[in-house]
């Protein structure tokens, strides 16, 4: 591949992720509206929101780290997208692999954590403490799942992991080969999105939306962009690990939206767990499923 082609891919991949991510936010809101018997927002609402937030007149900053935190939150995901193969574009996926991708996906949250820290608001700090605890909760089953998939495929290279699944059609999909891991992965993915019943770190009634408490204008706008990327990255990663990636854009996007619709539909039916309940749940069921799943991989 020539350098120009690679450069175009590196630019296109985050851009596609952003556009698809906005559509995923729209889907999330529409699902919530359906379940609550509302009409829901129009098609371009996510875009309007981002533009509106970025062009607000009052922009309140608590200092340089506050700003940099938002930049890191967006930038980390933009970088992560280039490691995530999509139909026809691999970017630099083979130079990092799945472990690097998982670690890059932590950078936005940690950037956000720094930014929130400088806001000097205990609600925000409690939110971050809870968010990091939640990360400790869901990353443990997620890591078991990733281990199982990577060990079964014999590589940490996502391109190869997808190729192995596409070799024999539906039969060789990760979800068919390793159903237990797929279920555990779905639960962990749901928790990683931070939606109900796992939205312990937003908790508007207790800690005044936690990390977002001092965020307004373009700060909130940055977090909105981050959420678009987060939805996209999480669901596409799941598709790459278990649903055979995408052979073409249609089936790729269909799978990504469908897999995301599952936790979204569950989310708006539930209230919120307490922190320790989230830990207990994550360390019990998905971990157990994951470990049994890994045992099957070894057999």
């Amino acid at each position: 591949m020539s350098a120009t082609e690679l450069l175009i891919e590196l630019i296109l991949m985050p851009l596609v992720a952003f556009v698809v991510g906005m559509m995923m936010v729209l889907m999330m809101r529409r699902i919530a509206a359906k379940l609550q018997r509302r009409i829901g927002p129009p098609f371009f609402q996510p875009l309007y929101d981002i533009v509106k937030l970025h062009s607000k007149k009052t922009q309140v900053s608590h200092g340089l780290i506050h700003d940099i935190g938002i930049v890191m939150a967006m930038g980390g995901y933009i970088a992560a997208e280039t490691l995530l193969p999509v139909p026809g574009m691999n970017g630099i996926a083979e130079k990092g692999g799945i472990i690097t991708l998982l670690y890059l996906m932590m950078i936005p949250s940690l950037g956000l954590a720094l930014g929130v820290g400088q806001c000097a608001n205990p609600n925000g700090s409690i939110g971050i403490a809870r968010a990091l605890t939640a990360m400790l909760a869901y990353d443990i089953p997620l890591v078991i799942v990733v281990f199982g998939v990577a060990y079964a495929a014999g590589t940490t290279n996502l391109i190869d992991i997808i190729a192995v699944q596409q070799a024999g059609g539906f039969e060789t999909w990760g979800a068919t080969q390793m159903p237990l891991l797929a279920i555990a992965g779905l639960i962990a993915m749901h928790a990683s999105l931070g939606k109900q019943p796992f939205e312990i770190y937003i908790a508007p009634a207790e800690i005044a939306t936690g990390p977002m408490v001092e965020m307004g204008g373009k700060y909130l706008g940055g977090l909105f962009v981050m959420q678009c990327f987060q939805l996209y990255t999480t669901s596409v990663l799941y598709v790459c690990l278990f649903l055979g990636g995408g052979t073409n854009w249609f089936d790729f996007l269909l799978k990504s939206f469908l897999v995301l619709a599952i936790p979204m539909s569950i989310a708006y039916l539930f209230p919120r767990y307490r922190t320790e309940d989230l830990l207990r749940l994550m360390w019990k069921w998905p971990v157990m499923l994951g470990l049994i799943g890994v045992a099957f991989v070894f057999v």
Partner: protein
Amino acid sequence: MMLTLLDELLLFSGATLLVALFIGRGLAAGWMVTILYGGQLLALLKMAVLGYEGGTIASSLTLEVMGQALSWRFDALSWFFALITIGSALLSSWFSCGAWERSYIRQGGNIWLFHTAMALNVFTMLILLASGDLLSLFIGWELVSWAGFLLMALAGGVAARAAMRYITYAMAGGMAIFGGLALIYTASGSLQLEAVTTAVEQMSGAKLWLLVILFGGGFGVKMGLMPFHLWQAPAYAETPGPGSAFLGAISSRMGLFAILLVLVKLFGIVKIESLKVPFTLIDARDLLAWIAVFTIILPTFTAMKQNDARHLLAWHGIGQGGYMLLGVVVADAMGGAGGLLHVFNHATYQAALFMAVTAVIYRTGTSDLNKLGGLVVRMPLSFVVLLIGIIGLAGLPPMNGFVSKWLVYRSLLNQGMPLLFLAAVIGTLGTILSVYKLIHNIFLGQLRVEHEHVSEAPWSMMIPMLILSAIIFITGLMPGIPLEWIASVLQTVGLPVPDYTLGGVESSSGSLDMIWVIGVLFAGFGVGALVFYSAGRSKRVHQLDNYAGGHFLSADVRYQYSDNFYAGLMHLIGGWYRGSFLWLERGITSLVEFLSLGMQGLYRRANAEFYLLTTALFVIAWVVI
């Protein structure tokens, strides 16, 4: 007689010690000692051929003690560890010069003792690293133990108590090593390094087990391996700042050096793997790996509960040692390289972290995480150093800690060890939680009224910190630089060498190229910044201009979340292992006390018939067996 390069290095190091000893009281002494450390580094760099091509350089000094020849030499393994030792000594000593030194003297500290103890530590470590036979290894080991004691104890008070605890453990470890040497000597009749290999060939399973336990335990004490880890955190944390940086960077790695030399190079991983634990499915190598992961997990979660920045870091130092041992005992190309690379990486970020915390103590007088906050606006450069350090410690891109941990993970994945892999990741996640607490409670959140006029750390402290930060980033960007040395070390100890490049490693089962990863990461940040800064200008507000549920905040209101930081997590796991190792330690202490009381009773009771009876019993038992 011609002086070899190793002689020059050791003489330089001895000279540093003498300078510290005789003129260590003056204020210029710190600078002189620092320059001499620089000289030691140059002398070491003259031997750089060891690090790049391997081979050995012998010292011209040899001794004959009771028919045993003692010799000293450097190979790639010694060179690699010596580089870290002298590098961290140079930067820690530089850090201690000038401003820190003056404040230390003002507070009644003995700066002469400090410089002497540091120089003595470096000197004895170099002697240990140069050991060319088992006897010189043992002598070096004891010297290092006592030198460490001196540095740990010099602050007095709590530090002296911690140091006493350390020396008790270290002596017990020394005895275990001595027992191992005795076993080897009886089996092979020699104390040369090769004797280990011959002895191992002759010994039976049970004796080999004993040997592994004696050496593993003895060297493990220094590394702070479970369950011998209790001494380390308080002993390192309570040492005066630059001393903590030096000890935290390299001191306990001497244990890993000895394990690499004796158990990996001479004993051989294959031989260790052949030792089965009776009645179970695991072997001695698995046992070591499991000890390593418990050393990763438990101290990491203990660190999370600390309310003192120095103690928090020292506990992490124990935990990170587990990754090094884990990589080394997995012993494939990636694991060995990861374990050794982590030694280098850990030294860089741990020293930087201790220095940043010391800078905070220098300016504010405390390292209590509940009494700080918001310092980023007053000490921005120290914040940056601490940030770079914690990213390294947590093992996240783009800093060097990520690369070594990535290698360890990959080796566990390649070898199909899911539980060890999981445990290693749990340690990393715990570290992320813990270091966020560290940076949040010191630098983020609300600035306290009494810290309103604090200023940035002085340049004499700042420059070494910035140098370390640069090393952390550059070796994260180009891990090929240290991997080149490590390749020689791996060859020396007989482990496979990975296919490394400047940016990482090449492998058919998934490669890593940090130059690309960091490139896109910073490009991503650039795009993020473009989006962020192209939007409307923001207005900087005062920290008290904040959401407080309808109340107004004033300067006397403490509006900061710092205590019991991970309340939800601790609610669940808090009670799981509270103090269980303290019970173990107390149990051993009472057992020893009980035995000594028993012995004393036996000894004091001058009862001839009873002695006769016991002796007869022993004789009969001996005859029967």
